[in-house]
């Protein structure tokens, strides 16, 4: 009988998901969706508490295939928060588009379960299963608005390319297994001391990283992102932009640092390549975008590029202190990225006229006059994403670039800074459109209470990080300690 305590949050979430599914089927159809939705959010919040309660140091179970530690707690907390907020934010949109069905929150919960399994994966098979559970849920909700061809196309594209990436990942896993004879991270970690590895393992790693890079939408495995972001229902895009990215990066980190830490010099080359490519593409391709969801897709590609710098540092740096600085920078960046993105998408979700979504950047024109509060908050998010002090986004970039400089990865730091200059152009253009262009018709009012709450909380985090950064910083530092003892 394996020890189930470490996996208690996952078990709870799985059981809750199935219970919610049943409840959705048998409850009164009129109110089922709404009830399931709110309960799902509640379940996710409760799960955060369980995650915090059951984790006491590092513990493995299921024959070493499953691991919990402070790193997992930190990342799972981010994922669960992001998912819960996404569930809450999606209600209004789905109701207005007539696709509010109870399966939607359940699928989100199942996706969250998959992500938690990814974060806790300590074995290649566990990794793959978690990834697939997450991906499959995401494929479904991407095409949830099935009457819309754009949504269906988004889901299909995501699915086909996702299958390809899973294939690459599996191929890599089998190569690694073939050349090392094991799939367990703990065993793998003991095999390559000194950085010696058969070329098959290295190539396997390349394939695995390609699979991961697809999930974090890093260049050149990003191609699905703009189309899917644009086509999928907006709350789904909001969800895509945050939680799966965090989960995939965490998975990537645990796999690379945990299982292949001694091969850092090898895999960090791949990370550096995709990081540079992502930063540059994220900066340039967004400039000509007219659709704000598409713009956010490129923006998130760019942000993933910056975040990957942290991972590159964790692989390439010579000394342990710098390596953990890189990881810490990565985690801080992810946390800040989550708040910025949720807030931004909350604003995008509010872009409705006469009960219809509008997605053009031009539609924001003159927002400062029609809705000054929303314009202010959105401007804060944009400045933060552009990395303007004293907002949170600046500090995210600061830690990352500092780590890169410490690790003497100057090319990364310089390209990062330059590309964020280019990226600032399109972020600040949105501010310009809101504040200096002639007003368009106002967006629909009133704004629901949950949206207001989301905007206030995320806005506060972005604005006040400089005043009280301790929770995020110390959390990230604790999480790093779990992955990099000493």
């Amino acid at each position, binding site marked *: 009988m394996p020890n189930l305590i470490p996996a208690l949050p996952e078990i709870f979430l*799985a059981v809750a998901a199935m219970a919610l599914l049943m409840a959705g089927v048998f409850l009164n159809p009129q109110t089922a969706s709404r009830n399931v939705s709110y309960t799902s959010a509640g379940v996710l919040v409760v799960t955060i508490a369980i995650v915090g309660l059951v984790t006491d140091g590092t513990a493995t179970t*299921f024959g070493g295939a499953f691991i919990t530690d402070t790193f997992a707690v930190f990342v799972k907390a981010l994922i669960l928060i992001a998912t819960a907020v996404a569930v809450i934010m999606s209600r209004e949109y789905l109701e207005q588009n007539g696709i509010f069905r109870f*399966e939607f929150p359940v699928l989100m919960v*199942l996706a969250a379960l998959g992500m938690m399994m990814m974060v806790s994966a300590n074995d290649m098979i566990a990794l793959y299963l978690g990834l697939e559970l997450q991906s499959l849920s995401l494929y*479904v909700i991407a095409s949830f608005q099935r009457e819309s061809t754009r949504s269906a196309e988004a889901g299909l594209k995501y699915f086909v390319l996702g299958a390809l990436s899973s294939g690459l990942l599996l191929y890599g896993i089998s190569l690694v297994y073939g050349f090392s004879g094991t799939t367990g991270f703990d065993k793998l970690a003991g095999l390559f001391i000194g950085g010696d590895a058969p070329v*098959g393992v290295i*190539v396997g790693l390349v394939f695995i990283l390609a699979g991961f890079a697809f999930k974090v939408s890093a260049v050149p495995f990003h191609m699905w992102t703009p189309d899917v972001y644009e086509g999928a229902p907006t709350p789904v895009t909001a969800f895509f932009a945050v939680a799966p990215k965090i989960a995939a990066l965490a998975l990537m980190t645990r796999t690379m640092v945990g299982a292949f830490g001694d091969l850092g010099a090898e895999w960090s080359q791949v990370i550096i390549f995709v990081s540079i490519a992502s930063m540059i593409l994220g900066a340039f391709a967004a400039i000509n975008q007219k659709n704000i969801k598409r713009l956010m897709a490129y923006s998130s590609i760019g942000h993933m590029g910056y975040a990957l710098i942290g991972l590159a540092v964790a692989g390439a740096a010579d000394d342990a202190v710098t390596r953990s600085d890189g990881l810490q920078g990565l985690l801080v960046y992810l946390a800040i990225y989550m708040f910025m993105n949720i807030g931004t998408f909350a604003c995008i979700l509010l872009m409705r006229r006469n009960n219809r979504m509008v997605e053009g950047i031009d539609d924001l024109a003159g927002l400062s006059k029609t809705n000054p509060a929303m314009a202010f908050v959105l401007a804060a998010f944009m400045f933060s994403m552009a990395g303007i002090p004293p907002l949170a986004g600046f500090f995210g970039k600061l830690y990352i670039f500092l780590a890169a400089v410490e690790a003497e990865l100057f090319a990364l730091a310089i390209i990062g800074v330059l590309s964020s200059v280019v990226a600032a152009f399109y972020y600040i253009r949105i501010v310009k459109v809101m504040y200096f262009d002639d007003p368009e018709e106002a967006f629909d009012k009133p704004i629901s209470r949950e949206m207001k709450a989301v905007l206030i909380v995320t806005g506060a985090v972005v604005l006040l990080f400089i005043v009280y950064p301790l929770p995020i910083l110390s959390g990230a530092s604790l999480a790093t300690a779990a992955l990099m003892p000493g």
Partner: protein
Amino acid sequence: MIIQSLAFYLFSIVIVASALMVISARNPVHSVLFLILAFFNSAGLFVLLGAEFLAMILVVVYVGAVAVLFLFVVMMLDINFAALREGFQQYLPLGAMVGLVLLIELGIIFGSWAIAPEVADLSSAPIPSDVTNTEALGRLIYTDYIYFFQAAGMVLLVAMIGAIVLTHRSRPGVRKQRIGEQVARRPSDTIEVRKVPTGGGI
């Protein structure tokens, strides 16, 4: 041993050849049929390894369910495969080059494959002799690999939900059987026995 080897090479060659036919046959129905052939031969390989349970499952699931489903889909959806191949010629050179490069590289990698000394012994005695194939699998799945098994279950659950969510439509006005109601019906609910006077009518 010689017979085993011969059988192995026979199955393998047929698998590779039919796999090639799957992607190169012009008629999609032929492709599916070649796929079925490949499945059968794979099952043969499993049998050679002594994994008769897997062999049977392969035949039942893949041939009996998946491949047949494919066949239905191919025949039901009237896809113009010629149109799909339109760009084929155009992209062939570049695609082929990249494919070739990858192939050569993978060849190099497998050239460096080192076989552990104990592999020969392990492969000749793959299964404990005192338990059946099915029993052995069951023991592993429900003990050491319970986590993977359950996780796979969740994946399948999501697949099922997804299939329902994306395709199920409740059409109003469609007459459906309601078994429960039918069974629960009593003659007294629907049948009224009237005494009809002769020649009186109702």
